């Protein structure tokens, strides 16, 4: 993950964060399992078939969904196709550069994609129009416009919200249909600082941690995707702890962002 513009986190800030953690609180006053404030505007880009503007603390992402018809993959002739793409725009952070995605943004896109794909949130079978010939392709594109840590969760919740409202036309002349949806995956990303596990890290917490883990779960309590990142490690006990935290925190997020939809 990138450092701040000068590339370092000051020693004084670092020890402040560590001291505060000992009392069970974080530098911004949150508890260890507390998310930052979440605001989601749905249908933010009316031209897209589904969209959402997510603010997770100071992190801001825009999710846009385009659904077009095309050919299926030869090995899955009966399934629609989904693709996920995350653009870490240079406007989001002083050291982000334009150009092809680097390994950080590829990892983020793949973790978001895996959570949505493996939970089978989109019923891809229903997006098949003519087996082997014509299926619907769901393009999920995400613009990261302001970066303050935890892109993965901001993106996942934006995608889930946008898909819940997305509509498509199987036939250009026909009626619009809602995208067929099976469930609502929520990812929770946690980092380890010292021996404490905390969720929804902001930029500074991301910088001073040496291990990160994302757990994506659906409302049936099943784990659908996991990804550990960075050079540090977790004990088995800590893995248990992060799964429990993911379920607890994830249920809260799902209730908050989708309460009225489901």
């Amino acid at each position, binding site marked *: 993950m990138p450092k701040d513009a000068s590339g370092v986190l000051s020693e004084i800030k670092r020890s402040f964060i560590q001291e505060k953690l000992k009392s069970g609180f974080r530098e911004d006053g949150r508890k260890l399992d507390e998310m930052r404030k979440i605001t989601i505007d749905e249908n*933010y880009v009316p031209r897209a078939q589904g969209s959402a503007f997510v603010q997770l603390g100071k992190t*801001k992402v825009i999710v846009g969904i*385009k659904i077009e018809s095309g050919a299926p993959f030869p090995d899955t002739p009966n399934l629609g196709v989904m693709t996920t793409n995350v653009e870490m725009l240079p*406007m*989001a*952070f002083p050291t982000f550069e334009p150009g092809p995605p680097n390994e950080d943004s590829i990892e983020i896109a793949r973790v978001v994609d895996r959570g949505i794909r493996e939970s089978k949130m989109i019923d891809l079978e229903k997006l098949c129009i003519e087996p082997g010939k014509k299926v619907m392709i769901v*393009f999920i594109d995400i613009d990261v*416009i302001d970066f303050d840590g935890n892109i993965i969760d901001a993106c996942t919740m934006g995608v889930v919200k946008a898909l819940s409202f997305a509509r498509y036309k199987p036939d250009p002349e026909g009626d619009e249909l809602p995208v067929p949806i099976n469930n609502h995956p929520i990812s929770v990303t946690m980092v380890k600082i010292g021996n404490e596990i905390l969720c929804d890290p902001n930029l500074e917490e991301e910088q001073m941690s040496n291990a990160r883990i994302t757990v994506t779960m659906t409302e049936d309590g099943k784990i659908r995707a996991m990804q550990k990142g960075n050079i540090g490690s977790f004990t088995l006990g800590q893995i248990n702890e992060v799964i429990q935290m993911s379920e607890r925190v994830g249920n809260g997020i799902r209730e908050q962002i989708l309460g009225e939809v489901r």
Partner: protein
Amino acid sequence: MGTPSDKKLIDENGLRLDGRGPDELRPIRIRTDVLERADGSAMIEWGGNKIIVAVYGPREAYPKHTQDIERAVIKARYNMAAFSVDERKRPGPDRRSVEISKVISEALTAAVMVEQFPRTQIDVFIEVVQADAGTRIASLTAASVALANAGIPMKDFVVGCTAGRVEGKVVLDLSKEEDNFGQADLPMAVLQKSGEVVLIQMDGELSKEEFDSAVAMIMDATKRIHEIQRNALVEKYQNIEAGGEE
């Protein structure tokens, strides 16, 4: 320009599809400080256009061979989100966005006191979140506000608008349908105080008289648009006077 269509773009009363008269602008709204990390930022909503602009700098120009020992280099990057248009756009720069980035950079260089910051670059990142005709001048209009918002010294504001010909009539601020099916498109941007033209492009077909009336319409409109730019910046300081952030 686009292909002729059966759709009437101007009705018998001279009103356009969206109910505007010939010299009427679409609704425009500009806000500053929409991003936290950037040194300056602005968002413009102009009709269905939704564009975010971020400014970073002046900072050391990189790669080094792009440095100019006499002035700052303005590097605008115009980028359309994949979901900003009807048919998904493949992410990344294409020939059109490279050209637009260049003309925007050049227009802004005319307004910024670039000679105060030799060897540096000023990045202007433009993200078109939703496109609805006239994105380049909307971007430029917002970029100028974002530069001011970043506290970068400027001689003047850049403010732009388009005009064009639709069904034989000269109209201001083309909508998407008018852009697609109209007969001419003239985006233009000026320095607000001096009225000097810093961007002009045109495609389609205009007679000399039509060109003159299009330019007159644009010049009149830039005064109204500049008021909106100015208010966006004033609003920021009013908030501070009123005791802090919104």
